[in-house]
């Protein structure tokens, strides 16, 4: 299970890459492996204000549709249009070409609610033991 060192994570298996005032978001390798083949992604509209922990996108796999929760609050600046025709990029490259959106962070302190890589790793391991 890939958990890059330079990212932050949520309990719902989204990742965040901080880039100055902006944040790039997506779903983790663990999330994509649970979902299986991703077949469709409903991305937020550019300009939309998303709120931390609230649904901001939908990912569909063959089996089901699942909500993606905003890891941070902010305005959507850019979304990954490639995912419209190639949703499988989320399976193949969840942290690189499978990114979802870039947001302009509204509140820096929200980062404190995110997990560091080691924490996220431990979180996955404990959830798998259940």
């Amino acid at each position, binding site marked *: 299970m890939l958990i890059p060192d330079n990212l932050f994570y949520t309990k719902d298996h989204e990742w965040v890459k901080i880039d100055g005032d902006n944040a790039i978001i997506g779903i983790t390798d663990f999330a994509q492996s649970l979902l*299986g083949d991703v077949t469709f992604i409903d991305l937020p509209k550019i300009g939309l204000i998303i709120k931390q922990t609230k649904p901001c996108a939908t990912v569909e796999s063959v089996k089901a549709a699942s909500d993606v929760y905003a890891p941070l609050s902010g305005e959507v600046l850019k979304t990954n249009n490639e995912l419209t025709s190639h949703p499988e990029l989320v399976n193949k490259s969840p942290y690189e070409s499978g990114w979802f959106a870039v947001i302009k962070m509204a509140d820096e302190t929200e980062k404190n609610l995110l997990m560091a890589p080691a924490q996220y790793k431990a979180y996955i391991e404990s959830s798998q033991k259940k």
Partner: protein
Amino acid sequence: MDTSFCSELVCTPLIDKHKELGAKLAPFGGWLMPIQYNSIIEEHNWTRMSAGLFDICHMGEFAVEADLEKSNLDNLVTVNLKVMPLGACRYGFMLNEQAGIIDDLLVYRISQSKWMIVVNAATTNGDEAHMRKYMNSATRLENISASTGKLDLQGPRARDVLNDLIGGDIHLRYYTFGYFDLLGEKIIISRTGYTGEMGYELYMPNNKIAQLWEKLLADKRVKPIGLGARDTLRLEMGYSLYGQDIDKNTTPLEAGLGHFIDFDKEFIGKPSLVKQKQDGLSRRMIYFTALSRRSPRHNYHLFYKDEDIGSVTSGSFSPSLGVGIGMGYVGRELIPGEEIILKETGISIPAKVVNKPIYKNGSAKCEVKNAYTR
């Protein structure tokens, strides 16, 4: 994967094989079964292109002895047993008095008075109880599910694979079966399936099912396929899944399966079915394709011109067509080509009504040269 819940669920005899292959396992019909090995889409496409191997050990089998002169077995199923040739398989139903579907099933005619009836996993015990309640003393039923393993081999290359395994030519027409020597057993192989592709169902005693699984998987044309792809394959064909598309509250006519009913014979539920035919249907099954990759799901509402006319029973992404597909019951007549919208809170999927099969290029019925019916 924690399999301690095997105590509540029945584990397929191939559970260790599935674990070795890294399958994701999940409960289905009271059994712990493989859902996928790697990717549902890849497994689906492999079955349409080559040959997929499915562990179907969960399904139930009854061995029935019934001389139709004295037995009332014919009355328990919609299949017209009296006109079935030896070596034929027929699809049909067990109905209750209201014509609700107790189960959908396959009947095999083994001899003049011997039959095998293949039923769904979750309904096996209920079916047995129903049959024992209605059958007369000239009917002998044995539930052989626990000792009978079943593998499905499906795909355009399935015949070549089986020919190589048997060392001969399998010669089976669509919906017929025969006995074949394999691993020291005489086993039933039928030219049937649930994928829309040319293929076979193999019935092997449970103690040798792992050996058969290994032998078939040793062929490079064959890959293991989980129940996830089995579901997308059958949905592309518009085949009903018991418990989801059909159940005790639906009739074969509502489910669009009336052509499998022989009204020239008597069977439990027939008067209700005849009455429904005369009165007209209050709902019927339709099939549809979405205009995008976005896929409808079970229980999404079905709208026609702003009117809520029904709901989706099965919905999924179609790997063969690259769009969402599904089926569901509606309260009015719709013709192919008509536009509908599938809705759920915050989701609205435009779709159009189509005839089944939704996927048209299946190889299931392609005839084999020199094939014969016994």
